């Protein structure tokens, strides 16, 4: 039977493209009548440009990227919406052996605790400043990325000014481990397997993880050209159902070996399957032979991981404001809010009779433990979603949150 819909999708070789990749390769898209063509790209800028001129309909994107585009912060953009998230968590902060030794001398323990690691890094940075040394240089994957914002959030909450006390540069994820080994950077925040890549080579140490800085926090999303979504509503719904089934398959522990093998293929990550296991199991070799198990390290499906919360979009927006990328205004906040589209997610998945959150936004940081919530249909468990510093983000009180964040550094 000929497929009903054709969708061109782009991805970057990162593990969190797995839900998109498996939707095609395990056959979920085909079963939903979607012929899904995958294009591997070399930069987020290429994905942005080629989605803008119509080469791609949908793409694996950094959660803040479509918001930045819609706000006009990027050199080229098209209006892009987010009807589906590709997972929660998955990133680490990795530092060079020299920086780790310095942090350990200042009391850091290999337990991934953000508060302890941040305090030690702060003492190391002040010691270096006292000796007149160059600021440490950290890399992130993109100026509008979860990586940049969680790294900055973590540092700022530990009394380190990410704009003054360190340098932040951009390095493509596959080059992070090389740049660290060559001494061009002192640390980085990136997704897996690029952290394990440094640990395996013996050139880096994982200091902390996204899943501890902000539990069950947003990362990559499925960005969709708005004009395409409007003209191809049925194709989008069918694709989202395929993505939902794919995400459930990716989450199933029984499928880990097959998923690791799939992502290891040269057209996807081109790295051995055992390198894909830490992100799936949450069992990380943090360096020096120390193994740590991280709760909810990366969730492709559980905890409503695919639901495009407007509070996630708005949190990214507050960080753009906080770090001077955009000025806060009600109009700009509305652009961020309107970018994420839980209505499209619900409409597509309703026929499947699966658990759907009833709200479009939540107070981030309010759930201290995993909590069953009221939802349409079957039962749903959310959270915990706490920030390591105990802060909360109420998406209805953006100005208050921005105010607290602007003074938190100065008060230190």
């Amino acid at each position, binding site marked *: 039977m000929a497929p009903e819909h054709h969708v061109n999708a782009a991805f970057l070789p990162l593990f969190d493209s797995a839900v998109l990749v498996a939707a095609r390769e395990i056959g979920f898209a085909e079963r939903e009548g979607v012929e899904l063509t995958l294009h591997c790209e*070399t*930069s987020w800028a290429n994905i942005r*440009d*080629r989605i*803008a001129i119509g080469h791609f309909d949908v793409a694996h994107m950094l959660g803040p990227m479509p918001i930045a585009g819609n706000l006009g912060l990027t*050199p080229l953009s098209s209006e892009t919406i987010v009807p589906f998230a590709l997972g929660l968590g998955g990133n680490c902060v990795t530092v060079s052996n020299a920086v780790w030794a310095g942090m350990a001398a200042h009391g850091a323990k290999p337990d991934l605790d953000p508060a302890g690691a941040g305090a030690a890094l702060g003492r190391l940075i002040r010691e270096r400043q006292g000796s007149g040394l160059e600021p440490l240089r950290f890399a992130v994957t*993109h100026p509008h990325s979860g990586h940049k914002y969680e790294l900055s959030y973590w540092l700022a909450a530990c009394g380190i000014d990410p704009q003054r006390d360190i340098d932040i*540069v*951009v390095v493509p994820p596959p080059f992070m481990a090389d740049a660290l080994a060559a001494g061009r950077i002192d640390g980085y925040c990136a997704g897996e397997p690029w952290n394990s890549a440094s640990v395996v080579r013996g050139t880096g140490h994982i200091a902390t993880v996204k899943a501890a800085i902000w539990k069950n926090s947003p990362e990559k999303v499925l960005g969709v050209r708005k004009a395409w979504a409007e003209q191809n509503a049925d194709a989008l719904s069918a694709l989202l159902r395929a993505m939902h089934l794919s995400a459930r398959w990716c989450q199933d522990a029984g499928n880990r070996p097959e998923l690791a093998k799939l992502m290891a293929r040269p057209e996807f990550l081109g790295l051995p399957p055992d390198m894909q296991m830490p992100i799936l199991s949450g069992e990380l070799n943090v360096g020096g032979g120390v193994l740590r198990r991280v709760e909810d390290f990366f969730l492709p499906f559980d905890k409503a991981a695919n639901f495009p919360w407007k509070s996630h979009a708005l949190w990214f927006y507050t960080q753009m404001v906080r770090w001077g990328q955009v000025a806060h205004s009600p109009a700009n906040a509305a652009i961020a809010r309107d970018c994420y589209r839980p209505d499209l997610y619900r409409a597509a998945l309703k026929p499947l009779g699966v658990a759907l959150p009833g709200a479009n936004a939540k107070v981030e940081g309010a759930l201290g433990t995993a909590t069953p919530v009221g939802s349409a249909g079957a039962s749903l468990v959310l959270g915990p979603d706490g920030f390591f510093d105990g802060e909360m983000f109420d998406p209805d009180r953006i100005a208050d949150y921005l105010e607290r964040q602007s003074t938190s550094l100065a008060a230190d």
Partner: protein
Amino acid sequence: MVAASLSILVIDENRIRAAVIEAGLRDAGHERVMLIHDVTGIAARIAELEPDVIVIDLENPNRDMLENMFQLSRTVKRPIAMFVDRSDRASIEAAVEAGVSAYVVDGLRQERVKPILDMAVSRFNAFSRMARELEEARGELQSRKQVDRAKRILMQSRGLSEEAAYALLRKTAMNQNRKISEIADSLITAAGLLGPQEGTDDGA
């Protein structure tokens, strides 16, 4: 209108393509063309060179890094925007299709930059066409070699003349609705499996 000539930086890891673009720009009268093949330490190089226009290939994974750098006034003194004109949709499409992207110093007049981008696009397209033709020529040469080897196998093992051997390959290809070169490949593989064959020896 002989204004001060623009300085153009071409960032391309493919040295041949970079040279093709450089030649095109020089032919068009641009004297100040610089090439960078390796992006290590590029921030310092750009700060030092202060180009008016930057041309970069889309395969380069460092575009995100460069764009971030352009937005930071600390590393680049003059703000750099992408493409000649955001509203010039056709130019943007032509550039992306060709696999090239351009960044220009803000405030530069469009009519001064547009010919540079057009030149880069046409040279990128010419290079791709050349590469494709070379690939096709290589493939053709390879299949001709394979057909010759298959003919030799048939001539030796079945005592056929060269014409008869070729006719047999051709007939088989037509019957199976496959290419002659594919039949030749299969025959060579089969001959290799069935035992040592002088005909498969390519040394001669």
